[in-house]
């Protein structure tokens, strides 16, 4: 009998029920502003609370909300899925704010809320530093403010921001990530600086959710072609809730065209797919393939080190306890459920994990 694999869940989403949850973590000015301006909540359009996908039906509370307490996470995810470590990726809409001072203040409050209300309450938890993405200076400052707490293992941006993430203006953020042993997490979702698709605004939630895949493609192309991945070869980028199966076909096109016009980007001096295989990881929830095709898609990735397991709690990606996408071969599970995450997150190295156990 083999030992069960203790899982590392790289994508769970704590959700503040309202801005009131964050005001204790704001300074007096901003705490009062929330009240005086009558601001209630910052639920993002990317995940409408009422949408079935945003919170699985049996994970909703009596008010139809969910994911607002650590007890729910323990009961619905950590315990039933035998999770050893879970990484909290808050998607609360602080990155959507257009006032950059408010954005920075609310983002700090969100990160401190995560630290106090979640990390301090369960040793299994780690978290991303949500980045205020108005300016690189602000993002770096937030990394510097929190990096001393090694339970923060990643810096987090949305896939649809203001400018493509590979652009040189963001490199100080990547430099800070490398310096502190943080991965760069990029999660589905938009800051609504632009339409969610390159052809314009979507009409339906369905379109918008599916459009994240385009944004991941463009972001990945930006990170490769701008030379960001080459400039920071030890940086690991984790694409979260990106879906998986689009990747091989996209890399095929990117690489094929690169062979002809690589003189545009001479710093991309090896095959783009190799760069991506070395430095980019994807959460495997959602996976986006029928079970009988999963193995073929995995073969196309040409790597068994790229996928990281995630429950995506409380998003509704699966029913019951079918948290591993069906069709994934048994032989991949040790890496998918645990090994790949340990290899990806410097702060989840086995030594760090033991430190966490002892804490």
């Amino acid at each position, binding site marked *: 009998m083999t030992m069960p694999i203790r899982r590392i869940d790289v994508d769970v989403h704590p959700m503040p029920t309202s801005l009131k949850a964050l005001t204790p973590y704001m300074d007096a000015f901003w705490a009062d502003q929330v009240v005086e301006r009558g601001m209630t909540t910052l639920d993002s359009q990317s995940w409408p609370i009422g949408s079935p996908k945003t919170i699985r039906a049996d994970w909703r509370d009596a008010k139809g909300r969910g994911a607002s307490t650590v007890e729910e996470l323990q009961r619905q995810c950590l315990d039933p899925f035998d999770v050893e470590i879970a990484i909290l990726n808050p998607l609360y809409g602080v990155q959507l704010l257009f006032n950059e001072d408010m954005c920075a203040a609310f983002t700090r409050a969100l990160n401190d809320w995560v630290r106090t209300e979640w990390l301090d309450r369960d040793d299994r938890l780690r978290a991303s530093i949500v980045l205020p993405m108005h300016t690189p200076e602000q993002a770096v400052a937030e990394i510097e403010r929190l990096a001393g707490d090694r339970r923060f293992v990643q810096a987090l941006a949305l896939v649809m921001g203001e400018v493509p993430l590979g652009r*040189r203006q963001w490199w100080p953020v990547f430099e800070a990530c490398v310096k502190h042993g943080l991965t760069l997490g990029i999660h589905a979702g938009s800051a609504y600086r632009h339409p969610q698709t390159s052809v314009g605004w979507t009409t339906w939630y369905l379109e918008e959710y599916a459009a994240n895949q385009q944004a991941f493609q463009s972001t990945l192309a930006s990170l490769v072609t*701008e*030379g*960001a991945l*080459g*400039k920071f070869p030890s940086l690991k980028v984790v694409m979260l809730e990106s879906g998986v199966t689009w990747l091989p076909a996209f890399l095929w096109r990117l690489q094929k065209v*690169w*062979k*002809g*016009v*690589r*003189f545009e980007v*001479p*710093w991309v*001096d090896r*095959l783009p797919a190799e760069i991506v295989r070395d430095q980019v990881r994807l959460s495997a929830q959602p996976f986006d393939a029928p079970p009988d095709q999963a193995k073929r898609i995995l073969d196309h990735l040409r790597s068994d080190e790229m996928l990281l397991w995630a429950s995506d709690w409380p998003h509704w990606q699966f029913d019951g306890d079918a948290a591993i996408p069906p069709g994934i071969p048994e032989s991949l599970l040790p890496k998918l459920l645990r090994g790949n995450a340990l290899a990806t997150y410097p702060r989840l190295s086995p030594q760090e994990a033991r430190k966490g156990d002892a804490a």
Partner: protein
Amino acid sequence: MPRIVAGPVAEIPPGGRKLVEAGEGRRIVVFNLDGDFFALSDRCPHQGGSLCRGAQSGHVSSPEPGVYTYERRGEMIRCPWHYWEFDIRTGKSWFDPRRVQVRQFPAHVETGAALIEGPYQAETYPVRVEDAYVVVDA
């Protein structure tokens, strides 16, 4: 291995090129890089584009993003179809030099006197003793 007279040296000046029929439908393109002659198959190994119709350029590399190191001007040939670039001196592709190469043929200059002593195949030029000719071992 048939030896082909590609033409008088004067016909392929530095930076120039010439397409040569090598028999059995084979075509070879001869380049002159600063007085050195190089002969490549005119068939791109990708999908068969005619390299003779491609653009010649230099080789750009980069120590880091935003920095362009431009060298060996005119020594790369780009297939006109998909812009794959090949080193005229070696026939090797830039992006996968080990596996993707254009077939290269030895090319050198012979005097007319030596050529007249022959034997050469596909010789279509009235060879003059006092001239120099580019010869390809095809």
